């Protein structure tokens, strides 16, 4: 599904190397988790994959189902099936959440040469999915993320993911700022989307999210590289001993 080879990335305006040769394969139907200390390059990886400006790829490749992602505009990557759930979803005053969702869904459909969703059909689908995520009618009407609590913003990200039905989902610290109940709700939303044809990359600091979204593979990232890969037990090891042991072991 997602294939990253020797990815090297620096900041565009600064001589600062952030990713130093990342190799990663996420298969369809699998959930991979990336854990790592602050500043290890986890969020940068998610931004570079989704096409945010300000970064320069100096070496390596990233492909989605064999298609080179790095040369595409962010909107084309989205239409190709990539989705990033933001760590800090952006507030957009003056654009209704529902309008935004419908515009996004139909823009992707149009880009793929599919028929656009009618207003009535869209409304039906979005209401059903919003209900599962306990997103009320008011949240759908309000401007995008405006006045949403931390938990509401994250649920809104998952709603977008559910509506857009991407092939490859990247969740960037989706657990940050969530209490236990909100985290459960978000995790349920994510789990509902798990399917054979869909890959997940879950970026997180803490193991607790992985109690709810059970990963198949866990990677530890440090200093711009993936330094260790294992099963779910690796997350527990981090939880119990911190990163220090693993970092020492690799060094």
């Amino acid at each position, binding site marked *: 599904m997602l294939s990253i080879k020797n990815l090297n990335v620096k900041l565009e305006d600064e001589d600062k190397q952030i990713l130093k040769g990342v190799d990663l394969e996420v298969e369809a139907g699998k959930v991979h988790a990336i854990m790592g200390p602050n500043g290890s390059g986890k969020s940068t990886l998610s931004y570079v994959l989704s096409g945010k400006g300000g970064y320069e790829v100096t070496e390596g490749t990233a492909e989605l189902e064999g298609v080179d992602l790095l040369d595409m505009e962010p909107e084309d990557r989205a239409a190709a099936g990539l989705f990033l759930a933001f760590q800090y979803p952006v507030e957009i005053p003056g*654009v209704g959440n529902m309008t935004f969702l419908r515009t996004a869904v139909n823009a992707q459909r149009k880009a793929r040469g599919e028929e656009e969703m009618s207003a009535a059909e869209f409304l039906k689908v979005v209401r059903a999915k919003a209900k599962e995520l306990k997103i009320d009618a008011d949240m759908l009407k309000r401007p995008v993320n405006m006045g949403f609590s931390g938990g509401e913003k994250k649920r809104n990200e998952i709603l977008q993911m559910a509506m857009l039905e991407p092939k490859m989902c990247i969740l960037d610290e989706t657990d940050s700022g969530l209490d236990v109940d909100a985290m459960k709700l978000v995790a349920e939303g994510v789990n509902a989307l798990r399917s054979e044809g869909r890959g997940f990359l879950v970026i997180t600091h803490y193991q607790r999210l992985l109690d709810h979204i059970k990963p198949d593979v866990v990677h530890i990232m440090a200093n711009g590289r993936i330094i260790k890969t294992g099963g779910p037990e690796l997350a527990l090891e981090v939880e119990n001993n911190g990163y220090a042991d693993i970092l020492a072991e690799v060094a």
Partner: protein
Amino acid sequence: MAEAALKTDPVAAILEGREVLATGWSAAARSDALARLQASGLPERRDEYWKFTRPDTLTQAQAPQAAVMADDEAPLFDEMDRLQIVFVDGVFDAEASDDLALEGISIERLATANSDLHWARDVYGVLEKRGQDPVSRPLAALNTATATDGILIHVTGKPSKPVNLIYNHKSDSSDATLHHCIKLDAGAELTVLENGPAAARLNKVMEVEIADGASFNHIRAQGRNHERRAATHLFARLGTESEFKSFTLTMNGVLTRNEAVIELTGDDAKAHIAGACVGDGDFHHDDTVFITHDAVNCESRQVFKKVLRNGAIGVFQGKILVKAGAQKTDGYQISQSLLLDGDSQFLAKPELEIYADDVACSHGSTSGAIDEDALFYLRSRGVPHADATDMLTLSFLAEAVEEIEANDLREEILDRLTGWLGRRRG
């Protein structure tokens, strides 16, 4: 010698060919206004109040030419039930207008109004004169002295539909001077819609007297002509528990100066004024607002948003004056510009002058580019770059457009803005 001096006097030059009516009910107001104009002279570049906007093309004797623009859009408010009053290059067009009869209001044409129109005498030039202090507004005095047409509306009740003043521009060299007076009796209500570019050069004054408990709602769109020029003044005086709401849409126009002078003279009155403007290239738009709080517990709100590209220039001069004794004043003012490139400019001068101690006044002014984080967020969801930019531009304008309370009118204005942006896609 005296003759040579006369020729270079700009006031004399612009008065040439204009008539200051010496008879009729407005004669006294007109000669009074002429004296004001002669005392103040016409605005000049060095005047502090015209620091950001060059007045020369508005004050020169001849109106600069302005090509008539073929407009393929349906006129605004077309689908609404309204009473239409049409002016062509500043002249009332009886044939194109509806019958000027409507329950709850009486409407007269300024050019033919008869001498026993007592109420108009108390409005015509009266609010304009009050608005000359502390800053002189010579173009408004010129207008009162020499206006050739306009409409006088006396509102005694609650008419069933809005009055729509429609301005058509058909001549490249038209120079229109329109003066409207509106008086709302206690408890009366009126919505006035205005649309169209009016003339190659327009000097327009609207005076609105709002009695206790009355409510005035105003939505204006200034047409899409690129080359037209306009200097407009909106004077309003508000009585106790009365309401004034005004929204202006400006798309295109080489020069626009919209002045609003609003006096809150009765307790618990409310004045909201807003504007959305979009300019591309040779475009200079100036909103100059002066709101005076002279009563207790009044609310005023100014919301102005400008989208500028390709060297377009936006100006905002907004003042809130809170007089001694105007306690519990709630004043709010925001002026913002979205600069779509590095060539455009926004010049703002927000002012507060407060002589009461129990007031809440706030003001803010910003100018910025499209928010890159928001743009990326939209694009990451699949919205193409150009659509995302338009969405964010509309979202920027939304706070001003949302000042329009009526859903249908608000949607119509948004549609026009969407259309304007759509025509500028690469």
